[in-house]
Structure formats: C-alpha cells, structure tokens
C-alpha cells in the first residue's frame, strides 16, 4: 500500500466525462413509456380563502386528469419538521404561488393553456408581508404569535458588561432573499403501481427526505416508496426540501392517472414558487472597552420564514450560533426568532442562516472600529477567539487555530496597508472611489449540536463480484464532487486505485440513509463513516483468508471476486456514533455546537463609480483553514463559486416583492453576476488538520458564501465613508445611501465625512 496517493490529488470527477460529453441524463432527458406531464395551479393572492374554482369552457377537460387535496391518500402535508405545510391548499391560502390543483395531460404543451383557463375566486384576508408586520401581531397568520421558533443563547453576565463599557455600539443590519439559481430547474417523474407502490426519480439533494414525505402523503410503508436521484444540475440547498413537494405532486398525479407523470418547472415557476434564502434583520448592541475589547452584548437575530415552518428552525439555529463570529464574547445574549409572513416559505441555501448573521457581525465590527476610532484590523485582532477560550455556546476551541496569523497572511496577500493608503489618496478627487474591506468568520461543519446523533447516519461499502468496491450512501452528487471525494476516501483507506472504487446511485432501494447532503457534512461526517465501512470490508476479506496482511490493488480485487464467488455479497456497514465527551443542550443551545469549524479571512477591494453609483469588485482574496484539502481543484472550485455567489448576494441579486410575490422571476430581471462582474478570486488554504473528518477534512461547501457580503459591504463603506448595512447593494441603493446621507448632513448641519 502506498500512503496518501489519492487523497490530496485532483483526480478526474467520477461523473465528469458524462457531463462534458452530454451523456449524463438529467430528469428532463428521461422519458418513460406512456408518460404524461403534470402542471401546478397556484394561488395568486398572499392570504385568504378559496371561494370558487371555475374551469374555463375553452378547454377539453375530459382529456386532463385533475388532482385536488381530496385525492390525497394519506396526510395532506409535506412531512419535514412540522407538518403545517399542505401539499395542496384546500381552503386557506397562506402565500402566493401556493399549489392548489394539479393537472396532467399526455401532451406537455397542452398544460399551460389549461392552467390559465382555471380561474379561482378568493375571499382575501389582510396579509403579513414584513418582519415588522409579523412582530406587531395585528394579524395572526401562524400559531399564536407568528413565531415558528425562538432560541435564546445566554453566556456570562451581560449586566456587568454594560456597567464596565467605555462604548456601547448599536447597529441594525439586513440581508435580502436570494435565489439559488441552480442551472437545472426542479423536476420529478413519478410512477405508481399498487404492488410496488410509488417510485420517483428526480433532481434532488436528500432522497430520504423525499422518502419520508411520500410515506406520509401517500400513506405507504417504507418499502413501497422508492426515491431515486438522477443526475442533478446544481442545488445549493434549493433542492433540500422543495423536491418533496414536487415529488408529492408527481406521485398524486401518477396514482390518479396510473401513468408515469413528469413535472418540470420552467425558470419562471421555479423562481417564483420555490424556496430562497431567508431575509434577515440583526440588531447588535455591544459593550466595548476603551481599547476595543468586546465585553458583552445582545444580538437580536430575526429571519423571515415565509408562510410555513419548513426548515426555518434549523436555519435559525445555525444563524444564531454563528451570530457572534470568530470572536470571544465574555458575555452575550442572542435572541433568535423565525417569523411567519405570507410569502412562499424561505428555505435552505448554502450557508443556512450563517451568511445572514455573519454579515451583521462583520459590519458591526467595522462600526465598532469607527466609533472607538481604531482600525477594523485592530478591533478584530483584539477580539479573536483563541484556543482554550469558549464560543458563545461555551464550546471550547480545541484546535490550534491562530486567527491573527490567518488575518496577517490575508492582509499581506491583499496588500491591505498599501492599498488603504493609495486609495485614500486617489479618493480625494475624481468620480471613482475605492475601498477595501475585511471579513473574518467561521463555519461549523456538520449538523448542529446533537443533530448528527439523531440522524444516526449509516454508510455501506460493498465488495462487488467483479472485484470493484462500491460506496453505498444516500449522499448525493449535484456538482460539488460528492462521488469523487467519497471514492477518494474509500480508495485511500483500502490502498486501492481511484478507478477501483465507485459510488452506487442514490436509490433508496439500494443505499442506506447516510443523512441529507447538506451542512458541509458529507466529506467530514459521511467520509469518516466510509473509512470505517471500508475497513470492515478489508477485515472480512482477511478474516475469510482471501486477503493477506499486505496486498496490491490487484490482489484486493481478486480477494473481492473470490469472496463473492464463494460466500455471496459482501457488504460492510458503519453507523455514526457521537464522540463520548460531547455535550449539547438543545433547549439552551449550549455546548458543543459543531464537531469542527472552518475559519477564514476574506478581503475585497472595490471601486464605486459616482457617475453611475455602480460597485465593482476589483480584487478578492479568500484565505481559509478547512482542515485537510482532499481535492485541490474541487476545493478551490467550491471557494471560487461560493465567492461568486456571495458577490451576487452583495451587489446584484435582489428579489423584488409585491404582495408576497416575486416580481422579477426571470434571469433578465433577477441579476446574477456574469464572469465580467467577478474579479479574479484568489483562493488560499491553510491546513491545520482535524481529528474529526476523513483524513482530517472539515466542511468546505458553505464557508465561502459567508464572507463576501460583509467584506464587500465594508469595502464599499470604506470607499464612500458611509455605512452600508443592507445587502444587496444595488446602484440604486448606493445612490439612496449617498443622497439620504447628504440630506441628513444638511439638516443637522454637520459636515459629511
């Protein structure tokens, strides 16, 4: 066995060739014999009751199959955390674009007209459209107080912090909704027969979430529900919970038509109806000592969950835990709330609450610096968490992380000091103002707290009759490299070649539940389980005498072949077990929140053109510590892509809401950055190693979207000398910031800086 020959090497992606040559079959490429097509009739109002549904005379309705809530065999809900979201609205409408009816027809082109020919009359009720309206509770739209979940995290004695403070710094920060914009829209095919039950194939992240939802909806036992992920063209969290809805719809149509039914969303429908990043509002009040040390503070973190619970409590929890950033807080009280509004439910999106609260924290650090008259660098240095100290949940930092060193390196890589000086000089005249901004942050890998223990993920590794090794996981590939990384881990563990290992298709009939493919957990948590399951195979082969103590890959393959020929299938299973010394109190949100954190410092240089008020990012340095980098090309790709998506969140992507409805659900009007809007992103890694993950890897997928928004907003604020506390910052927003500032300055008579 040669050690470390595969991990750390940029091997070709397992599914890369098929994607590049066009052989990969995405859901809309798949056509089953006799298949029909489905479409969804949706609400047009944010809140109210359905009075009457009229089917227009211009359509031959006999050719269509129509499904309503009455056709649901089981429970009318999308089972996830709470069971409050109906699969099809029966009477009450709680958000625009809420599914009401389903149509199926043999000809996919016959659907749009039929959808338009159905008119629905409503009895509208007043809608709750903003966090402030939801808080006011004039109209109760969910539970008793419009609140899906509240968490309070409390550490130390805040009261004494106020007393000791030289400064009390307050700020309010907001982030907007963001669309995931995977290249492939959502889609599903369902097929039903009474004997086998329901099968769905689709573009999705979490086969077992869909499986659970279908069991409840169709009232079928586990073995009669089968979920198969097909090649998935991007997800970013957007295919974590919503696919359960589409799978449910396709399944209901398949049950009623007794045909395979395909539902594919076009971009308009996908953007208007499916989940987005939670909009957020964060209020900081911080006690700071004379020399810039944080003594304590309160953080009120509020997110807009939309009309139903979906994943909001979990997003809230992660956002709350990240709200203190990579800093040491002697005392803090974080009050986190997820509120209901009459908008389509907001859901999972890369970062999962952390980008929102970290935006606020990192903008607030710059505000603290400004108020106490120190540099943003010094204020961060004074407060960085150090090994041995505890986080806001009182989790001790056990890794030898040195954030000051990380910051120093990032400052050097971005020529921070010299730029700061030259920008100050250049900005004295002309219409171009330049600025530079820093964000330091952390991201917890894996499920929060006891989440992994509850999940109890199971992974299998199989020795095949042809001598190959297959990894059996429900962890899915959707462009981020799951198949490649897990194959590397198994091959490395067993001393095999990369090509000797593959990952089985994510089909709930074939693979165990290794948990959802979310939370930057796959390589770290599932990867570790792959290691131990793979070792189980080797052990069995040795025990049975087919494999010696040392072996070549060829000998290993021969041993697999011989074993299977002699004894039949060989599979080894491994189940997650929480480390024994881990303490977590879910109610109080106290203890070991994450098995590991990734750490980072990002620095953005921007220019603002005062002729057009547009911001462009000129340079971006992304430096992070993510444990062992298993695949340098994939890892750098994750960072580059995450930063680009973060630039979108910061400067371009704004959902325009009207009455709870997205107005710009088209890529011409919802603006994502093009390659011309993204500067060269300079990616650097520090490797400290981590005991938890496979070969020392920590999570990497979400980290890069946490840093760009605060780094860029700090840079824009630096360029303009004006606070930029909300993202996205479109040109119109910059214009408003500058003109309101001038107006305020005029009124108060104080010079604008």
């Amino acid at each position, binding site marked *: 066995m040669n050690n470390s020959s595969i991990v750390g090497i940029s091997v070709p992606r397992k599914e890369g060739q098929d994607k590049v040559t066009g052989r990969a079959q995405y859901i809309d490429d798949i056509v089953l014999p006799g298949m029909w097509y489905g479409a969804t009739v949706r609400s047009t109002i944010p809140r109210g009751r359905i009075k009457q549904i009229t089917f227009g005379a211009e359509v031959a309705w006999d050719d269509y199959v129509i499904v309503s809530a009455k056709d649901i065999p089981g429970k009318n809900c999308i089972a996830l955390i709470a069971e409050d979201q109906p699969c099809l609205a029966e009477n009450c409408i709680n958000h625009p674009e809420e599914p009401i009816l389903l149509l199926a027809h043999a000809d996919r*082109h*016959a659907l*749009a*007209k039929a959808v*338009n020919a159905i008119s629905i009359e409503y009895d509208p009720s007043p809608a709750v459209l903003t966090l402030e309206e939801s808080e006011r509770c004039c109209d109760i739209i969910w539970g008793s107080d419009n609140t899906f979940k509240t968490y309070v995290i409390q550490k130390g004695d805040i009261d004494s912090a106020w007393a000791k403070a030289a400064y009390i710094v307050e700020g309010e920060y907001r982030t907007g909704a963001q669309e995931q914009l995977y290249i492939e829209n959502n889609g599903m095919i369902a097929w039903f027969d009474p004997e086998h039950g329901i099968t769905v194939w689709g573009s999705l992240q979490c086969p077992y979430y869909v499986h659970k939802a279908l069991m409840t909806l169709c009232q079928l036992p586990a073995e009669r529900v089968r979920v198969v992920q097909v090649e998935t063209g991007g997800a970013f969290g957007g295919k974590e919970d919503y696919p359960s809805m589409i799978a449910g719809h396709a399944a209901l149509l398949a049950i009623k038509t007794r045909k395979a039914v395909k539902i594919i969303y*076009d971009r*308009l429908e996908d953007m208007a109806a499916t989940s987005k990043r939670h909009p957020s509002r964060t209020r900081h009040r911080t006690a700071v000592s004379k020399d810039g040390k944080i003594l304590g503070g309160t953080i009120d973190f509020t997110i807009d969950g939309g009309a139903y619970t979906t994943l909001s409590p979990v997003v809230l929890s992660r956002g709350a835990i990240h709200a203190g950033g990579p800093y040491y807080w002697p005392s803090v009280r974080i009050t986190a709330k997820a509120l209901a509004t009459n908008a389509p439910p907001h859901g999972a999106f890369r970062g999962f609450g952390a980008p929102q609260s970290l935006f606020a924290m990192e903008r607030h650090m710059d505000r603290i610096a400004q108020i106490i008259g120190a540099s943003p660098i010094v204020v961060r240095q004074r407060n960085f968490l150090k090994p041995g100290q505890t986080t806001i949940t009182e989790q001790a930092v056990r890794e030898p992380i040195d954030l000051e060193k990380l910051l120093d390196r990032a400052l050097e890589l971005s020529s921070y000091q010299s730029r700061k000086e030259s920008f100050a000089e250049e900005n004295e005249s002309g*219409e171009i103002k330049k600025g530079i901004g820093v964000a330091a942050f952390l991201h917890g890998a894996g499920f929060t707290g006891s989440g992994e223990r509850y999940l109890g993920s199971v992974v299998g590794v199989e020795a095949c009759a042809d001598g190959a090794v297959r990894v059996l996981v429900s962890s899915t590939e959707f462009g981020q490299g799951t198949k490649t990384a897990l194959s590397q881990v198994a091959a490395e563990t067993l001393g095999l070649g990369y090509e000797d290992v593959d990952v089985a298709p994510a089909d709930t009939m074939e693979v165990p539940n290794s948990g959802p493919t979310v939370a930057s957990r796959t390589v770290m948590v599932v990867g570790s389980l792959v290691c131990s399951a793979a070792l189980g195979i080797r052990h069995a082969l040795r025990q049975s005498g087919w494999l010696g103590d040392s072996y070549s890959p060829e000998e290993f393959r021969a041993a697999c072949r011989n074993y299977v020929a002699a004894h039949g299938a060989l599979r080894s299973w491994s189940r997650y077990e929480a480390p024994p010394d881990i303490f977590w109190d879910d109610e109080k949100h106290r203890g070991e929140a994450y098995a590991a954190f990734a750490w980072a410092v990002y620095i953005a240089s921007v220019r603002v053109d*005062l*002729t*057009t*008020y*547009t911001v*462009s990012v000129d340079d971006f340095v992304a430096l992070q510590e993510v444990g062992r980098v298993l695949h340098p090309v994939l890892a750098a790709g994750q960072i580059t892509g995450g930063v680009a998506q973060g630039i979108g969140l910061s400067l*371009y992507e704004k959902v*325009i809401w009207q009455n709870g409805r997205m*107005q*710009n659900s088209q890529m*011409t*009007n919802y*603006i994502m*950055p*093009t390659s*011309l*809007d993204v500067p060269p992103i300079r990616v650097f890694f520090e490797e400290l190693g981590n005991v938890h993950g496979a070969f020392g890897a920590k999570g990497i997928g979400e980290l890069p979207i946490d840093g760009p928004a605060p780094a860029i907003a700090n840079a824009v604020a630096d360029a303009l000398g004006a606070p930029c506390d909300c993202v996205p910052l*479109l*040109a*119109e927003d910059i*214009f*408003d910031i500058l*003109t309101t500032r001038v107006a305020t300055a005029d009124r108060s008579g104080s010079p604008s800086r």
Partner: protein
Amino acid sequence: MRSNPRDYQLVAPGTLHAVLSLLAEAPGKWLPIAGGTDLMVLYGAGKLAARNLVSIWSLPELRGIEVLPDQVRIGAGCTYAELREHPVIAREFPLLARAASWTGGTANQNRGTIGGNIVNASPAADSLPALLVYEAELILVSVRGERRVPYLGFHTGYKTTQLAGDELLRAVCLARQFSECLHHTRKVGARSAQAIAKVAIAALGGVAGGRVQEVRIALASVAPVPLRLFETERAVKGKSIDKCLLAAARRATVSEIRPIDDIRSTARYRSAVSSNLVEEFLRRLSAGAPI
C-alpha cells in the same frame, strides 16, 4: 415553454416579394419574425399574441451593409455580429458598433437584427440612441413601393411605430458626415454584460474656438421612446463649457426626460444618472478626449 407550438403557424416564403405579397393579402395578419430574439422570449413565456409568423430571416434583400460615397445603407436583417465587425461602421459610426457589441451575448449577436431592434421599439434598446444621434433614415417597403422616413419620430409611443401592417423595414441609412466629431456612449446596466439598459447615452459633438459647435445627445430608458435631448442640446450649443453650463445642461436634461420606477430601476436614480452621463459627455467634449 408556455406556448403550444400547435397554436402557431410559421411560413418562410424565402423572397422579399413573396413576403410582401403575403403581408399585403391581409395587412396585420402576419407578423414578421427576423432573428426571433425578441419574439421567442414572448413565445417562451406564453405571451406571443400573434399566431401567424412569416420568417424574414436571411432574406437576401434585407442583408448586407452597403457603403456609398455619402452614406451607409444597413440592411434591416443585419445582425449585431455583422455590424460590430464592419470596418466602416466601426470607424465612422462607433456609437452603433459599440451598441452592437454590448447587445446580449455572442449567441444573441449572431441572431438579433438591427431591424428587429428598431421595430420592437423598446425604449431600452441599445442601438436606438445611436440612430437618433446619427439622424438615421429608414427605408420602409411594401408592395405599394418604398418610402423613406426619418428615424426620429418613427416611434409614435411606447412600443408603437409608423410601420403599416403590410410594410417591412428594409434598411437604415446613415449619412457619412460625423468623422470629425467626438462620439461618446455609455450603457448603465445592472451588470457588466447581458443587461438591459437602466439608462444609456449616445452623443456626439464638436468644439471650436472654445464653444460647442455641434452637439447631439440621446438617451435610452428615460421615456416611453428612445429620446433625443433637444432642450439640452439647445442649452449648450454655441456656449463654452464651464461649471455654469454643466449645471444648466443637467437642469435641461432632468426637465426633458420622463423616467419611471419599474422593475429595473427607479425614476430618481435614472434622473440623477442621466444628468451625470450628460455632464460626463460634456466634460469629455471640453477636454477633447477621443472615444
């Protein structure tokens, strides 16, 4: 795709004469489709009202750029790729070449035509301010014959034109008289490429003896139609460019545009940026900087 192909009819007669005869048979029944880059967007969204389409894509009579001694005649079927690569357009009509270069992406530039941009009549269209500044003339054709109309005034309101139901736009004529001028253009979109203009300027001018001799300014996306800023031009013509004049030009600009709040921007922003763009142009003009 929200339209049913069965609801639509597309014919491609292949010659200008055949197309014009078809249009004449029942004026208004047939809608010409050139590159389809505007019409197919509507089709995809289920919003294309016209059911009968006649293809004029690659009709030889609408193609090509003809360079005559005193003018250039651009076929309505000319694509953006052809426009931006043409040496005479690039040299003498840089505002148009630039507009073509930032219209959509490569695929769109290979397919979209200048005729489609004009007849589609969006106030945000990229090539139209340039045509206003160059005082283009249009050649319209039908079985009844050809007529020549100034481009200025061709748009009669938001997305409406002087084109009759049996007519096609055949060509765009530009007089070759601007080589001495300074040409200035800038598009302000929501991103650096693949963006619809929130505001755009095309302008040309010349200064002699410290005074503005020649000046023409047009803006996109600030009124129901692409707008020539005659008031602003009057305010600066014959004057020397100083702080006072810049302020007057800004005032004139703001008074003659009619920007709105819409999904892409706000009236406030458009108004401020319009006057910024006019000022930027005048500053360049006074500095004599080449394009």
